[in-house]
């Protein structure tokens, strides 16, 4: 059996960081990725809709086997749901958008990089619901610094207690629609700042700056946006300590007689051959729910599950219908490059941050985003009534004025009855039992969404915008692609799976990086926090290994 110091299962934001951090500390690392290898400079390039056979929509019906969100531009870096199914109770839909490819979802993520504040880490102490995180902002701040400094986050300091500032590159300028929304926000007292994105505005760590093509979610062709393949993997590979195993679907964590993890078993994607490799430390970094699935599949009742909490407290952030319309001052104006930076204006949470949380009729908070202008496709045109020359002129006139306000993420309350388990009856293409996901919203979640919808309309009206589409609709959980929880962290091994370093309470040489450890969703985008927690966990891992505690 091939032996390594560390096996990392998964190459997304956290797997990539762990790989870099551990390889640079001299560990021999096997990075095991279920999907295919990808080279951004070879595989990603600008694509105009008319260059594609089906102009972005794919052969009719073909993309049905992929998750919503997959397009003809990017389905190769999304997941094939037919090969990788999951189940839900029939009346409880859950949308689970995954990627199986080197770099995972970092290849097409929305790049938003926010810091949690103590209003989130210690929310339970403030409003009495659920549990606090076992860490505070002070514990994680140095790791936020470290991650931001390395990946490059373009942002403007906002000086808001609920939205901590960090180590920033220059922000991207606002486009016209965002400038108008920013003025509107100021008028009605909403905080507003350019969306913080892991997207370079200058040359940084051997990566070129953004060239404002707006093609981000289809894969950045120069590596200006953070992804594993552009940012963390090159320095990891440079150490010579990394063995990259793509097309290798991990099915089990292997254990020895001393109750220590001893390696993993994986299935070769194309040969179906089962292979075992060994290591002194096993790191799971295959996404919140894939990590949990692996633990559930590795032992009866779930590995590292003495607490019985594994799989419980699943959360996604709350999302739903946008408010869309037009900004009259932009009608019939010369067309500008409006969608080249794909960022937007960010309205950080401003609810329940005062001394009386819950006085607004719900607890916790949410953040909004706003943007607009001429896009690669005039999405409003299909819904615009009429035809003929007048219709065509109307499309041109409205094209630069299209605008929308959307929910970036609202905090969904952690509840034990939102959970994942193995479905004994369904297996994926490699014979691994799939997850059955049970997740619903509670009343607080609905009240929070309704408050967003009212406030979004308020912002739109303050911008003197014409609202065209304003039908509230709370999307099924999973839709925000911020699914977290199911292996939460805590100080008490009886009520949590991981300690605050993402190390399992039960098995000291087994670490779980990603969103699984989240105690609450907060109202921020989760990736930066996952990466900072990974950096923190890796520091402990290195320390323990040097002291001989990992042998």
């Amino acid at each position, binding site marked *: 059996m091939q032996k390594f110091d560390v096996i990392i299962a998964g190459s997304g934001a956290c797997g990539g960081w762990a790989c870099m951090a551990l390889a640079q500390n001299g560990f021999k690392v096997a990075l095991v990725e279920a999907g295919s290898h990808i080279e951004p*400079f070879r595989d990603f390039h600008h694509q*105009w*809709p*008319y260059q594609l*056979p*089906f*102009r*972005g*929509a794919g*052969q*009719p*019906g*073909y*993309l*049905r086997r992929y998750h919503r*969100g997959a*397009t003809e*531009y990017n389905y190769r870096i999304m997941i094939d749901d037919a090969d990788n199914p999951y189940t839900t109770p029939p009346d409880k839909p859950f949308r689970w958008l995954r990627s199986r490819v080197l770099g995972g979802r970092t290849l097409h993520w*929305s790049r938003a990089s926010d810091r949690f504040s103590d209003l989130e880490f210690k929310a339970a102490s403030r409003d009495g619901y659920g549990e606090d995180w076992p860490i505070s902002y002070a514990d994680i701040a140095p790791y936020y610094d470290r991650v931001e400094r390395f990946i490059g986050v373009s942002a403007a300091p906002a000086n808001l207690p609920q939205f901590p500032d960090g180590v920033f590159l220059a922000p991207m*300028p*606002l*486009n*016209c629609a965002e*400038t108008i929304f920013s*003025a509107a926000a100021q008028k009605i007292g909403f905080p507003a700042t350019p969306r913080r994105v892991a997207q370079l505005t200058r*040359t940084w760590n*051997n*990566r*070129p700056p953004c*060239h*404002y*093509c*707006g*093609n981000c*979610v289809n894969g950045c062709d120069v*590596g200006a946006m953070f992804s594993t393949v*552009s940012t963390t993997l*090159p320095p990891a590979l440079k150490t010579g300590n990394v063995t990259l195993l793509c097309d290798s679907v991990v099915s089990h964590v292997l254990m020895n007689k001393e109750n220590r993890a001893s390696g993993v078993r994986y299935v070769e994607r194309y040969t179906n051959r089962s292979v075992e490799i060994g290591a002194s430390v096993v790191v799971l970094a295959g996404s919140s729910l894939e990590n949990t699935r692996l633990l559930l599949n590795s032992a009866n009742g779930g590995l590292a599950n003495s607490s019985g909490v594994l799989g419980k407290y699943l959360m996604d952030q709350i999302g739903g219908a946008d408010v869309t319309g037009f900004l009259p*001052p932009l009608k019939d104006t010369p*067309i*500008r*490059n409006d969608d*080249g930076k794909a960022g937007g204006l960010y309205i950080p949470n401003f609810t329940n941050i005062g001394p009386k949380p819950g006085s607004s009729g719900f607890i916790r908070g949410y953040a909004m985003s706003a943007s607009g202008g001429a*896009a*690669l*496709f*005039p*999405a409003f*045109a*299909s819904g615009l*009534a*009429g*035809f*003929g*020359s007048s*219709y*065509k002129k109307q*499309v041109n006139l409205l*094209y630069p004025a299209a605008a929308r306000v959307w929910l970036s993420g609202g905090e969904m309350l952690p509840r034990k009855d939102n959970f994942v388990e193995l479905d004994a009856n369904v297996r994926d293409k490699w014979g691994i039992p799939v997850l059955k996901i049970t997740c619903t919203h509670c009343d607080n979640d609905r009240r929070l969404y309704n408050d967003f919808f009212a406030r979004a309309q308020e912002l739109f009206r*303050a911008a003197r915008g014409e609202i065209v589409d304003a039908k509230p609709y709370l999307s099924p959980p999973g839709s925000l692609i911020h699914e977290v929880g199911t292996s939460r962290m805590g100080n008490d091994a009886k009520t949590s799976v991981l300690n605050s370093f993402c190390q399992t309470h039960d098995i000291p040489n087994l670490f779980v990086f990603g969103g699984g450890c989240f105690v609450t969703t907060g109202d921020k985008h989760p990736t930066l926090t996952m990466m900072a927690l990974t950096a923190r966990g890796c520091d402990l891992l290195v320390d323990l290994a040097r002291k001989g505690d990992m042998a």
Partner: protein
Amino acid sequence: MTRRNAGWAILKAASAAGGAAFFAHWLKAVQPVTSAHGHESHVQAPPDPHNWEAYKPQFFSAEDFHMLDLVTATLIPSDDTPGAHDACVAHFIDFVVYAAAEYAPDMQAQWRRAMAYLRGEQFVTMSEEQRVALLERISEPERDASKRNPGYKHYALIKDMTVHAFYTSRIGLVDVLKYQGLAYLTEFPGCSHPEHEKV
């Protein structure tokens, strides 16, 4: 996810480089260029790689294809800017609907019904005014949700695909909408209008 892309109506219904040479290339890329239709654009949009003019319809009969070309040209006419006929919208629709055989045969059935409906209305032999009047009539539910019309579903199908086909064509996107993105720029051209800084 993004709002830059569009899906098929049928789906909706169902459910490190670096260095001076590298940057020089970007700068060159933002020089104004003149498009085939004479409009100056800062976007260096590549040509459409498909030779649509030479495309032979595979799904629609010659008669239906002619009718489809007429109806798309009525929806998005050639006026002071190019329209659906210039952008070979009917050719593209034929290609898409033909390709639906494998995974979305229901889409083909919808288009057969839409063509049969227009044939029944004698669309081809109508005058231009009559065609406009027919489309006005069957599209009434689009303007007034309380109205019903048996032709509306056919209108909606054809319009949705025509809009998608036209505004994703090079002519629709670059020449008519004058889209400025998908470029290589050294800096993002942010808002430079003081009047947008207050509302």
